[in-house]
């Protein structure tokens, strides 16, 4: 065990914040010696400096460096222009990863939103709402690694042989209840991407449900009552009133899910390792980096991820500016 790390641990948890407080108090003492007119020009920078330095060093600079590395050769010694991008986009296995990310984007985002909405609306109408919501939300607390094992076990597959039982829950239900041949959920190309996506849907549905539910409670009940009095059916109330009023919330949840779909890594890494045509961009980028030591290609894939995320980024910025305007 790493007992020799205890001093460093204490240093990080106690020492660094203490230094930070000393830094703020100390500089403030110095600032107060200066003419008052200079205070508003100096003080804010003192307060934001530690954060900005870290963000600049570990986020901004690396982004620029990655963009540059994506234009260099495998070992980073030669400038190759867009050759890495050309190679990546003509590599069939990368194209499969891109296709899979699109599957994630559509089905993961869509299913999480739909399940979250349905569960929020249903739970809103029962007295045991909080219990249901806690149970469905619970997977959000566990790691994707643990969830990957949970679902690998759910999808477990045995060839159909006499005396061999299906120990995977899904195949047991499938073979006994529906009398079908067992399915190799994680290997069969037609279904394995959806199997992985569903594991992620299982984790994230609670997230969509809880936020949708909070927004649902913000809708004045009179609106629905009025519609019902006017003779609207429950379905009409749902589609004509609830959904339109929830649309902004669903959009925001959707942007979070889209970012996650593009960055999907852990589930694929743990459950299939990207084999059987289930690879995704983030897993591939990691593989190029560590298995192939091909930094140029790896950086090019990271750039593709960044480009894919730009519409969401712009949307977030616009939304933020709108919110600030009405603050």
């Amino acid at each position, binding site marked *: 065990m790493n007992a020799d790390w205890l001093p460093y641990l204490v240093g990080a948890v106690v020492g660094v914040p203490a230094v930070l407080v000393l830094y703020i108090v100390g500089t403030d003492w110095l600032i107060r010696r200066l003419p008052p007119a200079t205070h508003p020009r100096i003080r*804010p920078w003192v307060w934001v400096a530690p954060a900005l330095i870290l963000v600049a060093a570990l986020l901004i600079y690396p982004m620029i460096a990655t963009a540059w590395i994506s234009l260099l050769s495998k070992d980073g010694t030669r400038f190759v222009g867009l050759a890495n991008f050309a190679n990546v986009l003509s590599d069939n296995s990368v194209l499969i990863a891109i296709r899979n990310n699109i599957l994630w984007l559509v089905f993961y985002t869509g299913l999480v939103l739909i399940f979250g909405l349905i569960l929020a609306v*249903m739970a809103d109408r029962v007295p045991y709402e909080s219990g249901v919501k806690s*149970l469905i939300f619970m997977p959000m607390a566990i*790691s994707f690694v643990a969830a990957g094992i949970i679902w690998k076990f759910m999808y477990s597959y045995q060839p159909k042989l006499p005396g061999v039982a299906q120990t995977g829950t899904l195949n047991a239900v499938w073979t006994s209840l529906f009398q079908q041949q067992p399915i190799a959920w994680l290997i069969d190309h037609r279904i394995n991407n959806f199997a992985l996506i569903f594991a992620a849907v299982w984790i994230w549905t609670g997230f969509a449900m809880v936020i949708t539910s909070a*927004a649902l409670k913000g809708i004045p009940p009179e609106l629905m009552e009025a519609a019902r009095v006017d003779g609207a059916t429950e379905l009409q109330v749902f589609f004509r009133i609830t959904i339109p009023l929830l649309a902004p919330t669903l959009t925001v949840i959707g942007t979070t899910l889209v970012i996650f779909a593009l960055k999907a890594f852990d589930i694929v890494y743990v459950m299939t390792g990207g084999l059987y045509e289930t690879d995704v961009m983030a897993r591939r980028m990691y593989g190029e980096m560590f298995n192939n030591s091909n930094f140029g290609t790896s950086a090019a894939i990271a750039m593709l991820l960044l480009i894919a995320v730009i519409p969401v980024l712009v949307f977030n910025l616009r939304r933020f500016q709108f919110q600030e305007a009405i603050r």
Partner: protein
Amino acid sequence: MSVAPVAAPRVAETPIVVDAGKEPRRFTLGSLPLNLALILLTIIWIIPTLGLLVSSFRPGFLISRTGWWTALFPPYQFTLQNYTDVLQTNNLAASFVNSLTIAIPATVLPIAIAAFAAYAFAWMKFPARNWLFLLLVGLLAVPLQMTLIPVLKIFNVLGLSGNFFGIWIAHTAYGLPFAIYLLRNFFGALPTDLFESAQIDGAGPVTMFFRLVLPLSVPALASLAIFQFLWTWNDLLVALVYIGSNPQYAPMTVTIANLVNSLGQGYELLTAAAFLSMALPLVVFLALQRYFVRGMTAGAVKG
């Protein structure tokens, strides 16, 4: 840069909790089909976790022969062997300590650094304030992948990779945009009169920050802490990149992911290992879920 939700929707301004345990309302469709469907869905949702939990207590020779549900009926055959095995032979006890060693500083540091910056963004006027904050909002969506290669190169040169220093720094920086965003929104929503009267009493920014802002922001700090702790505890990618497979420093996620590769079908050990890694987050979640949920939606607590 965070996997944490980028931003939350504008929702009701009441505190948002999972158990908004108010008077139940709108029972118009509280019919049998609705209840049955909801209960069925909930059961489907907990079956995977239940299967894992039950299997982790079953002897290995049974796991490969019969489904986990058979364990729910007599004859009962449960064992703790899987847990002792996985703790003793698979380095999992050390990994548990490693996970704590990573997650605790990776929770404390970004919050400490973000709090000062968030206060400046919320209550101090300076040129470039708005576009710097806009930059942080933009960074929320940028994939972590964009930073991995250069940061790893820097860490390698400075000797920060393959041990805890690099991952502490990385998690701190990656957590900052979301932490500053959330805290700035919370600090900014505190009433202006509070600061004005404190200023009249002669309080400077330092006094107001420590005596006024921090005590009032305990709920926001708590939800942020839970969020950041769960994220760093559950993280796989950052640990894989900056610690690598060095088993001496590997957190549970990395150790377990390696176990999956080496064991393949050894579900008696995998399930026990997975449950060990889930235990702490589940306790944190169950004890503090109202803060957890509030953190998720908090971007919108006010505007």
